């Protein structure tokens, strides 16, 4: 049986752990609200943008010689996987779920004889992919200094990706991120951004005049659409991360509470046993006289 002062120390240490996890949970829930607001605020833009793109893509895309960002390079030999994770851990399975999905996709592509390149956004994903695919990592975007992801961050990542595409470094680009379902439910998602895929337009009634030409607009908008998709993914990721952290820390706080209860009972029992023991010693000592 551990002695009393050891138990007391352990209880104190678990209590301070609980304070920390509780604080982290509260911070995460405040940040989650902000992240959710940001995701909400970004939605109208993404929706409008995608609706317009879908309409344009439907009318132009079918023709030969369309922009490469839409029609592809005619090959899917080299694939770029953009894996977006958090900069920090302690958020449950958030990072590992995204990495797991990306790893599965990479393995499958490699098994099919494709060339895989990986671009990581966020430190955590890089750390866990480095072990297995160290040679495939082409670049890393560090967002650890960024407090709130802005469109500029997404735009920079998109520029990076587009630059590589223009240089012919890959044929297909996919992004991996986590979609925010709810606080307890984040869905790791894979989305192809190059060549662009748009949901079929729902009976677009209006016929637009285009200025400049349809092709001109499309060429102008396609790179932006990559940025928009990345931005949406970053926002979803930010909300998911905080949601995952919140529920992970909630669990940790609860577990710490349970542990304190258990340790306290043990402490009280030991103390009781010690007192009883001492009493017996005193009584038997007195009897012996």
């Amino acid at each position, binding site marked *: 049986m551990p002695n009393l002062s050891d138990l007391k120390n352990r209880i104190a240490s678990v209590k301070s752990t609980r304070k920390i996890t509780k604080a982290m949970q509260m911070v995460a829930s405040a940040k989650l609200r902000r992240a959710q607001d940001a995701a909400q605020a*970004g939605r*109208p833009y993404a929706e409008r943008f995608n609706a317009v793109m879908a309409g344009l893509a439907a009318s132009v895309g079918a023709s030969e010689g369309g922009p490469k960002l839409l029609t592809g390079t005619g090959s899917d030999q080299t694939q770029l996987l953009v894996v977006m994770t958090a900069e920090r851990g302690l958020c449950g399975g958030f990072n590992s779920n995204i990495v797991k999905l990306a790893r599965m996709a990479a393995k499958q592509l490699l098994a099919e004889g494709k060339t895989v390149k990986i671009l990581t956004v966020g430190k955590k994903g890089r750390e866990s992919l480095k072990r297995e695919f160290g040679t495939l990592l082409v670049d890393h975007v560090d967002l650890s200094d960024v407090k709130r992801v802005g*469109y500029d961050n997404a735009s920079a990542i998109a520029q990076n990706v587009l630059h590589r595409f223009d240089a012919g470094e890959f044929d297909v680009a996919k992004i991996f991120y986590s979609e925010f379902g709810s606080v307890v439910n984040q869905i790791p998602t894979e989305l192809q951004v190059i060549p662009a895929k748009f949901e079929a337009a729902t009976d677009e009634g209006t016929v637009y005049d285009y200025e400049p030409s349809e092709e001109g607009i499309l060429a102008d908008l396609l790179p932006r659409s990559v940025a928009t998709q990345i931005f949406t993914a970053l926002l979803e990721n930010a909300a998911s991360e905080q949601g995952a952290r919140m529920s992970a820390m909630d669990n940790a706080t609860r577990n710490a509470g349970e542990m304190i209860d258990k340790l306290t009972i043990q402490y009280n029992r030991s103390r009781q046993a010690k007192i009883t023991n001492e009493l017996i010693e005193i009584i038997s000592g007195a009897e012996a006289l």
Partner: protein
Amino acid sequence: MADSLNFDLVSPERSLASFEATSVQLPGSEGDMTAMANHEPVLTTLRPGILSVSAAGGVNEYVVTGGFAEVTAQGVTVIAERAMAKADVTQEDMDGIVVGAAEAVERASEDAQEAARKVQSDVAALASALGLNAA
């Protein structure tokens, strides 16, 4: 009302404005245009410039750095990469935009050089229209 249209200005980060307007003047990449109610549906890209919206309460002016606008008979939706109320634009913002445009020129491939240079000159024009330094 037949003589008003819905005006929406959305940026990637949030929706900036949404109200009833009587006419909207757009800095289209092929030239300025003014949209009023029952305008023919048009989709146009925008150059860096000033977007001016006339409404019952007066004229609202915004600075946009590009994006596109969707004009329908019912309204105008401006989808701007970056947009600010004209009065809020500071020299610092302008510097950022100018630097961004200059970088785009450097980065642009040969085919895109001309377009990037045009953006740069549009930015310079915008700066002088606002009475700010473009250097």
